[in-house]
């Protein structure tokens, strides 16, 4: 029974004693934006209120338990009602709550005001990666977890940012108001970066608004926080905040790369290069469902290896990948993979794991399918 005290003391001690570092440690991170600091303050205020109430309440309780035990000869008193006391202990908590609600309301209003942003980023959740569109800039990136499978399986030592690292972070400028528009292409995901105190669900078919203004350059890590299927635990969010000039340079470079990528569609591609590229696409995008060796997870996710019906029907293969299968987890990839990637991954699938069709799918043909 004495545990109540011990726990409260432990909690109080710990929160003071441990320095607050970013997204590690024992407590909520203070974070790197005004909003995150406001939230942290709210958190600490309510925490201390609870501690104080806890000390008083448990104090009286343990006092009674020690003082009024029968073994010490206590004799029960008779009283069982006292209107004044009861009114007081209804009113005081109420007032405390009102006091609490005032700063909370202010912070919430601020968090909801996404107007006058400098940049708009559309964040789309996919099973299981994030897509970032810099709206009005024609730059789109896909952000996949980059932790190797071997680390997860335990056959390789786990790195410092195990599970919290991606191939392409969301790059943002500091000191700018960024409006974040979240949505999803399949199930509900939730985009969360503790250091920014931004957590917003990504709802398929709807768009949610939130915003942030980052104070310090740095790399901030978070995760998807809404159960979104099998690899929900492997869908990290990484934000790389940098100074405006760096950001501008990065954005310009990105635009060029996108243009170059578009150019690749027109040329004739060979089997080797498509398979090589397709293997990468497969590993980052498709393997989560259809598995590393194409064996799938029947009956939910069909096998692609040794799938004779599929190998006999090239058109259907392309159609499924381009348009998806409606009403199933198989999404349409025409909007999320480039024509080159689609051609590459289909070619790869038709020439891997014992599927030896020798088929080569040209990006130009895919392009023609998507935008006739």
């Amino acid at each position, binding site marked *: *029974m004495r545990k109540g005290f011990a726990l409260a003391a432990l*909690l109080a001690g710990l929160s003071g004693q441990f320095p607050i570092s970013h*997204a590690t440690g*024992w407590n*909520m991170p203070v974070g790197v934006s005004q909003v995150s600091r*406001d939230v942290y303050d*709210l*958190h600490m205020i*309510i925490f201390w209120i*609870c501690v104080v*109430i*806890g000390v008083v*309440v*448990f104090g009286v*309780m343990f006092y*009674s338990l020690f003082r*009024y*035990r029968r*073994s010490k000869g*206590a004799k*029960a*008193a008779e009283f*069982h*009602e006292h209107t004044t*006391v009861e009114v007081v*202990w*209804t009113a005081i908590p*109420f007032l405390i*709550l009102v006091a609490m609600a005032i700063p*909370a309301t202010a*912070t*919430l209003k601020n968090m*909801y005001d996404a107007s006058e942003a400098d940049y708009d980023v559309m964040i789309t959740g996919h099973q299981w990666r994030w897509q970032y569109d810099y709206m009005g800039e024609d730059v789109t990136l896909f952000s996949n977890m980059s932790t190797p499978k071997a680390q*997860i399986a335990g056959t390789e030592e*786990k790195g410092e940012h195990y*599970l919290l690292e991606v191939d392409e972070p969301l790059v943002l400028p500091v000191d700018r108001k960024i409006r974040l528009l979240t949505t999803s292409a399949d*199930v*509900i995901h*939730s985009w*969360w970066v*503790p250091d920014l*105190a931004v*957590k*917003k669900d990504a709802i*398929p*078919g*709807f768009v949610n608004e939130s915003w942030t203004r980052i104070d310090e350059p740095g790399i901030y890590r978070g*995760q998807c*926080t809404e*159960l*979104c*299927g*099998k*690899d929900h*635990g492997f869908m990290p969010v990484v934000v790389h905040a940098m100074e405006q000039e760096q950001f501008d340079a990065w954005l310009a470079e990105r635009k060029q790369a996108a243009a170059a990528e578009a150019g690749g569609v027109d040329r004739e591609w060979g089997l080797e290069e498509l398979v090589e590229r397709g293997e990468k696409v497969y590993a980052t995008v498709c393997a989560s469902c259809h598995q590393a060796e194409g064996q799938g*997870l*029947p009956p*939910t996710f069909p096998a692609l290896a040794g799938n004779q019906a599929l190998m006999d029907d090239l058109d259907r293969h392309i159609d499924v990948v381009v348009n998806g299968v409606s*009403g199933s*987890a198989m999404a349409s990839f025409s909007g999320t993979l480039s024509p080159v990637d689609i051609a590459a991954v289909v070619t790869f699938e038709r020439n891997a794991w014992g599927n030896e069709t020798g088929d080569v799918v040209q990006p130009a043909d895919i392009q023609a399918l998507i935008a006739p």
Partner: protein
Amino acid sequence: MAPQSPPKATLEHSQSASGSATADGFQEEHHYRSGPLRWLLTTNHKEIGSLYLIFSLAMFMIGGAMALVIRLELFQPGLQMIQPEFFNQMTTMHGLIMVFGAVMPGFVGLANWMIPLQIGAPDMALPRLNNFSFWLLPIAFTLLLSTLLMPGGGPNFGWTFYAPLSTTYAPPSTTFFIFALHMAGISSILGAINIIATILNLRAPGMRLMDMTLFVWTWLITAFLLIAVMPVLAGVITMMLLDINFGTSFFNAAGGGDPVLFQHLFWFFGHPEVYIMILPAFGIVSVIIPTFARKRLFGYASMVYATAAIAILSFLVWAHHMFAVGLPLVAELFFMYTTLLIAVPTGVKVFNWITTLFRGEITFETPMLFALAFVVLFTIGGFSGLMLAIAPADFQYHDTYFVVAHFHYVLVPGAVFSIMAAVYYWLPKWTGHYPDERLGRWHFWLSVIGVNLLFFPMHFAGLAGMPRRIPDYALQFADFNMASSIGGFLFGFSQLLFIWVVVKCVRGGVKAPANAWDGATDLEWTVPSPAPLHTFETPPDLRDFKFH
């Protein structure tokens, strides 16, 4: 509602002819059956109560074993034991089984046993319906568990089964999951109807509503909550069924629906549901503490009003589970304020319990130990609930282990401890023997230590950023998880002691008199221990009875 007492003479028979009825071959089953068939066909509230309690214990073990699978996988970072698909099924099934299979039937079992005894009724109002309510449960849960063996596996979308993960993207077995939940829902509704009818109609003459024990009161209000919200759950899973099998668009924006609609409907059920799991616990603690403090419950009337206030408020707070889904600002504020308000009536309860202890004459038998631990640990869980209610802060807490810590504090050392307290408290009445006090203490202390080691570190893991429902986690959460897992096994295996105590007590032990606890004053302690199969066949005379 005005206090009403049924007229003493309740013998007026229906007017219709009674002679001709025997002519059409009606045979009344006069004798009690023996053997296993007796348990299958029983209409006796005590036997049905025992069936519920046994079922609940079995489900607690199964759900607990699943939790231990979860804890085993989370013992250290990396995927060791199981694959993510199976992990999700374990999380989902654990939540569903504990909520619908362990805690709710546990409380219903106690209600069946104790409500007729505490109000001086011969049985439940509708005894056959009572048996039907029970037998739906094993059928429903057998079906639910069998989904784990179906192609594609069982439900893997969390106990909250948000669409579209639970519709378009769900395994084929989801249809069976829906039907299992339908059956559990029917069982709950019918059980609740029975409880209300019993309490309102079968009180012994002379017992007014404000004479009832708090256990009966809290159950009356809980039953009302059940009847109000279980149909909403039935409705929303029916809509899922249509989305899955008939191509409707309720939760699909492409056709004009909205996935968030699912969440509104679910939580309109779901939030009152969590109070369904705590109000009877309040009732139990409110009868145990006065007994062992040997002092009348402080503030009986305010306890009743507080319970009612909590129940009413519980219909107005549901979207506090949805702060991060992008509600309009006004909605967000409304639900934040209403949620905060719930702390007021709950605080009244806590203060009343503590004032009951104040200047009492306290002893620490096992039921009392569990009840006291309930007060402390539930309050800690309530505090974290209050933190969650602060919407801007909930953006940081939501869907992290901080939430997992919160609800396990209110559910495990809350609801589950209260059920254990009740079992220790009423075992003498049920079996005629006292439970072994020494083993009971061992069970208690191991449980208290285990449960805190299990759930306290989850606060830190959550604040540090660990999301819930993940099979693997980043390295900075490793220590917290290891501690939790050790605590989980300690707590889990301590429950074997509990089973041992119960079995031992059923088989024998120190004989208990009619009033097993010297501070106990409620009506159930006036009948012999063990309570005979039939009690209060003629209503007790309460003219000289001192209520609470």
